[in-house]
């Protein structure tokens, strides 16, 4: 870590073709916003894995994940005419909608469970579906390396919040740490990630 290389490496590698993909997605979203279903199909092909992946990560249950992912895409379709490219990339917009929907699903279920104080819950039958990880080594490595530059406690807090779908207060309870501390860890960790990944909004 002493050498400057990790950041430089990440930046210099800044995804060959990624800019192209972002531009392509923006063009497709503009067309989809005008009702072009074929363009929307192409968007699906480009971000379907991202949407399903993050929903699956948070929701876990495959059947529910499919339901939520489907809702996410219908929502993206509905809102496509309102997508504003000046406010960020299509991927970021799509990921925001997907993650929001996924946490809404798990939190409303949690609320329902709390209310009804139901005691048993069934785990989904195992082996029902094998999740096939999309082989995007570049993205995986890039994120793994960036995450490795966080402190352990920062990484833990960011991962529990985003992948776990927990609020920072819940993360604090899980880690038995003060809420303010967790809020700070999430903030420091995410900002560090942003700087490492060289993401430009």
């Amino acid at each position, binding site marked *: 870590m002493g050498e400057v290389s990790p950041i430089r490496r990440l930046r210099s590698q800044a995804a060959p073709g990624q800019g192209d993909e972002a531009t392509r997605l923006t063009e497709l979203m503009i067309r989809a916003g005008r009702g072009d*279903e074929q363009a929307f199909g192409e968007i699906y092909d480009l971000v379907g894995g991202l949407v399903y992946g993050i929903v699956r990560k948070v929701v876990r249950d495959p059947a529910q994940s499919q339901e939520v992912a489907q809702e996410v895409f219908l929502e993206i379709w509905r809102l496509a005419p309102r997508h504003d490219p000046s406010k960020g990339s299509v991927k970021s917009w799509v990921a925001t909608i997907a993650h929001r929907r996924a946490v809404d699903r798990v939190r409303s279920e949690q609320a329902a469970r709390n209310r009804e104080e139901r005691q048993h819950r069934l785990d989904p039958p195992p082996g029902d579906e094998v999740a096939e990880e999309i082989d995007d080594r570049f993205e995986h490595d890039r994120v793994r390396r960036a995450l490795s530059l966080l402190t352990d406690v920062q990484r833990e807090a960011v991962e529990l919040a985003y992948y776990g779908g927990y609020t920072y207060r819940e993360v604090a309870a899980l880690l038995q740490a003060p809420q303010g501390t967790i809020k700070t860890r999430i903030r420091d960790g995410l900002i560090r990630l942003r700087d490492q990944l060289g993401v430009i909004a």
Partner: protein
Amino acid sequence: MTDDLHHLTAAYSLDALDPHEQEAFEAHYPSCEACATEVAELRETAAVLASAVAVAPPPKLRAAVMAGIAVTRQSAPTVPDPRVAVAEIRPSNGSRSRFTGRFPPRFLALAAAIAIVAGVAGGLWATVGSRSGDPVDDLIAAPDAVTTELASDGGSSLRVVWSAERDQAAVIGTGLTDPGTGQTYELWASLDGAVAPAGLFAPVGGEVRMLLDLDDLDAEGWGVTVEPEGGSPQPTSEILYFGTL
């Protein structure tokens, strides 16, 4: 207060705020350049975290999505100058006739003001439309009606029935407390991180059953606050009821 809000950008970008903090932050950040920029950047970062866990969706999902969009109407685009939009959408007095004289002119002026502020007008009209049959029942029977139970405390229950096709929603509730003199309940539609006013309602004897006419309003969730009579363009008090579609 503002300092605190500034520090919520990261937790907000990860959807890690409590509902009331989220509401407060969403009311703040669009008008705060520093926060808005940081949220945009951190959302890009979050999207990279999402990309890192990408999983190929089941093949049948694509077919389901494509079939779904074929029968789903898209939202109207956001028009840059809301004043122009309101002028165009509401041709002079014609559409106003929907409002009966039951509401004071002050309310109509306010409703127009809300429309201008929000860009997505949430006008209120009471159950005056159809004299034959119960308009609420009629809405519930709409093919695309979606019912959302709003989470609430103990004794009360509140649900929102919404038909995007008809652009109407009904609020149905029991056990509601009186909002107090000079105050009213206001329904909010939440969508993509923002809220828009969806209409006002007041319980009678703790009960409400009221049809609200929306104006091309889209929603992924509903919330209810108590607001000063005439309503507010943005929530000014804590969310009392909330539910997502």
